[in-house]
């Protein structure tokens, strides 16, 4: 873990104070995943770390430096000391940048990219391999692959800040393209409102099938959860422009609230069934609390 502090420019996604607190955290995986480079993460493999793991019989060609000479003196047999191998971790962050994310008193996309930035920062700080993909409407994608080292943090923030959400959600397509580019298993954080006409099942299945340790952060604005509508309205879909006449009576609003709760519940159940960690984030919940408390509780960071 590095103690180097990175100063963020004004208007940056994360404040220096918050980043200082993030320095103490690390992205963890429920599964031990094979890394490409030697990193700071304990691997399933035995390696060259300082941490003792096991002994094995010497075989020809082994590094003589690893022979436990003390044991040879007592037993007169050659044993090699095995140490825990340490590897890097691939952290993939997918952010939904469709038009539906551009909504709310606290903007949903703004919230989502802050969460993404925070997790990415934790990963970078722990020498993990972080890749970010931001997927907007019409197949547009903004990808920043294989970020390592804190020097990349400012570039990452700039990258995230410059993206404007627009277009129609197509998470299935976005996930497929992401998986094609990143075959290596890792931790995958998907931040979205999951309001996809094609359903939320497809993208999550694709991620799980690719052995990703998946975390789904479901971002919704409070206005979506508890709308304050009363009267006759023509609702316009921000993504499709589709118009829908509603007479927002108390009953209708109550039914809508039930439907929202049902939607969240079905997403949660779907995730639970596939070992995907589900996190509901209303934008009125400060994202710092989400990162420091909720993500820790969910086991994404430690």
């Amino acid at each position, binding site marked *: 873990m590095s103690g180097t502090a990175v100063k963020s420019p004004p208007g940056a996604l994360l404040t220096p104070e918050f980043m200082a607190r993030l320095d103490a955290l690390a992205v963890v995986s429920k599964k031990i995943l094979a890394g490409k480079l030697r990193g700071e993460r304990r691997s399933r493999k035995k390696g060259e770390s300082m941490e003792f793991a096991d002994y094995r019989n010497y075989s020809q060609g082994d590094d003589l430096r690893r022979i436990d000479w003390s044991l040879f003196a007592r037993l007169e047999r050659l044993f090699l000391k095995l140490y825990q191998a340490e590897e890097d971790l691939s952290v993939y962050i997918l952010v939904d940048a469709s038009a539906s994310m551009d909504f709310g008193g606290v903007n949903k996309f703004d919230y989502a990219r802050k969460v993404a930035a925070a997790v990415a920062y934790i990963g970078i700080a722990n020498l993990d391999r972080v890749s970010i993909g931001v997927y907007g409407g019409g197949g547009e994608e903004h990808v920043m692959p294989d970020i390592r080292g804190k020097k990349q943090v400012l570039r990452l923030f700039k990258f995230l800040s410059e993206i404007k959400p627009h277009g129609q959600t197509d998470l299935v397509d976005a996930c497929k393209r992401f998986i094609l580019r990143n075959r290596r298993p890792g931790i995958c954080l998907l931040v979205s409102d999951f309001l996809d006409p094609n359903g939320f099942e497809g993208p999550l299945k694709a991620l799980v099938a690719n052995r990703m340790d998946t975390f789904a952060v479901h971002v919704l604005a409070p206005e979506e959860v508890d709308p304050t509508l009363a009267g006759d309205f023509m609702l316009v879909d921000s993504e499709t422009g589709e118009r829908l006449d509603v007479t927002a009576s108390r009953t209708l609003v109550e039914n809508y609230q039930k*439907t929202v709760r049902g939607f969240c519940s079905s997403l949660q159940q779907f995730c639970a069934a596939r070992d995907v960690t589900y996190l509901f984030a209303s934008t009125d919940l400060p994202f710092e609390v989400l990162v420091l408390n909720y993500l820790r509780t969910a086991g994404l960071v430690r």
Partner: protein
Amino acid sequence: MNFLNFLEPLGLAGLAALAPIVALYFLKLRREERVVPSTLLWKKVIKDLHVNAPFQRLKYSLLLLLQLLLVALLAFALARPFLNMAAETGTYTVLLIDTSASMATRDSGPDGKRSRLQQALEDAKQKIDDMGRIDEMCIVAFDEDPRRITPFTNDRSYLKKKLIELEPRHLRTQAQEAFQTALAMAEERRGGEVVVLSDGSFDKLSLQQLLGEAALGANTEEVSMARLRKFRFVKYGKEYTDNVGITNISARTRLVSQGTGADRLEQLETQLFVMVENYAIDDVKAILTISSDTGSFAPMVKVVDLKARVRGAESLNAEATGRTMEDSRVAQAFRLPPNYTGVVTATLSTQNGEDSFALDNIGRVVVGGSEGMRVLLITQANYFIEKVLVVMKGCTVAKMSPEDFEKDWSQRGAQSVAEYDAIIFDGIAPSRWDDGGAIFLGVLPPLPGFKVKTVDAEAGAEPKPVKLEWPKIVDWDVAHPAMRYVNFGNVQIKEVQGWEIPKTSSVLVEGSGGPLIVATESDRVNAVGVAFELLASDWPYRASLPLFLRNAVGWVSEVSPRRRPMAQRTGEMLVLPPVDGAPTATLAWPEGARTLEVALSATTKQRVPNIDTIGLYRLTGITGDPPEGRIYAANLADPRESDNVAQDAVQIGEESLEATPSAVEGKREIWRNLVFVAVCLLLAEWAIYHRRVGM
């Protein structure tokens, strides 16, 4: 009894307008656009509710609800709903409205400055508005007499038009006949009732007369009460008054002598009597001002202290309280300048200026006969009388022979002597005498009750008049004005006619065989009859004759039609004297409110009714009269009207008809309230609409 009814149920057809509103709502519903992240979940909700979507759309659409409510309210308002309150009015209503003088008292209305009649008419209008579709009403006004203003009708505009024409008349209240008339009208219709709008300031009514004596005997008490319950009395005015008024005004002109000896002058002097009464509950200092319309004398002012009126139980306890009703009543006399002629006005005011009833604060009297006493002597030749009359300086004496008089009388009747204050008939008398002052010398006064005594003669012969010779003087009445200073003891009479006189006459000189001189007095006639010829006595040689003649001329002339102070009460007929040539004159009511062409008679008096306003009446158009014409004054001068305390109940026999607080409590229409609420809804709708559009 339904609590809510409708006067125009057809108005409910307006509810049909609700259907187009709902239709328009669906057709032209204006929706506000609202961008949402995704309609995904909304669509799902709508899909779930799709089965009963139209009702859901209607539900909680505030604007639509307001519109529907507004139209419904207007439709209800058109139907003229009313609430049946405690006292339900009958279908047929006789509105009995008091238009007497006391209803002009300004102590009603919200500000307490409206006259009682104005307030009553307001309520009556409201009551007319409240009439149902099949209800009928008739209006009867009453003061001195009941007047049917309208028949039973449902025509509201006609009723209101007639109502507006009603004004307070300066007349007293005669309620008995009015109540009887109204009850008879109400009983003509089934369920009829009488609503009396009055201050109740009139005398107790007779139950027997009201219900009919025969009916009263036949009816049980219950039936009588049921008939009485047809009356509803609505009181106007307050239970106390601040009124101070002139309750009587009159004047009397008499002959007075000014100076002595050769300078002695006979003049006419008029005395004005004014009665002032206080009806207020406080002691009052009233200022009574007597003034001349021509300004020929300086106004005379008197401050009159009047005690508070004693009423009810207090008046029964006069000894304990030391206060009587008389303390609140003061009579004042004023002596007008000699030979004054013209209008005299008495004006009453109080020091604090408060008096809600103005009609009795003024009284007028017309004083005539400016040119002094005029005496007509009808005689063949009577030196003594002529001599005596000549001595009466200030009197104008005319002489006429009996032949000329008879000729003139046959042609013009009383008109032939109308210019004179006193007429001395010497040995001749007209066929009748019914107006004015006259002295009959040696001839029987042609007045009712006077007869010549006769003795029964033999069969077939004419009865003979009784003649008394040398009667003894038994007594003479020195207290009588005509006999002042007269000593009759030394008079010898040769022959006296025997007269039978009415009991109302007074004997001035009593002889041994009967009356020698008699006097008779009535409203319009003062007459003295001497039962002997002057020349058949030694009276012409006695000093008592000039004294007697002067006294008698002065006394009889007090009733002279020419000089009779003219002031009458409103409600009395105006009596116009005969005028030569029977011209047509114009009588103008005070303030020129009305004029009437009057065809005057040459021989008889003309009577004009409807003297219903206080003030001066002018009769113009008679040749020889001054341009301003003959003036007559009419005053209220009625203590009963001046005592204008509103009564809580009308006393009918032993029963009392309690006042109800309002004339219009029966039905209260609420359409105005509905329209008001509808307008409020419209404003609310407008506000909500604009708030939504601006959202």
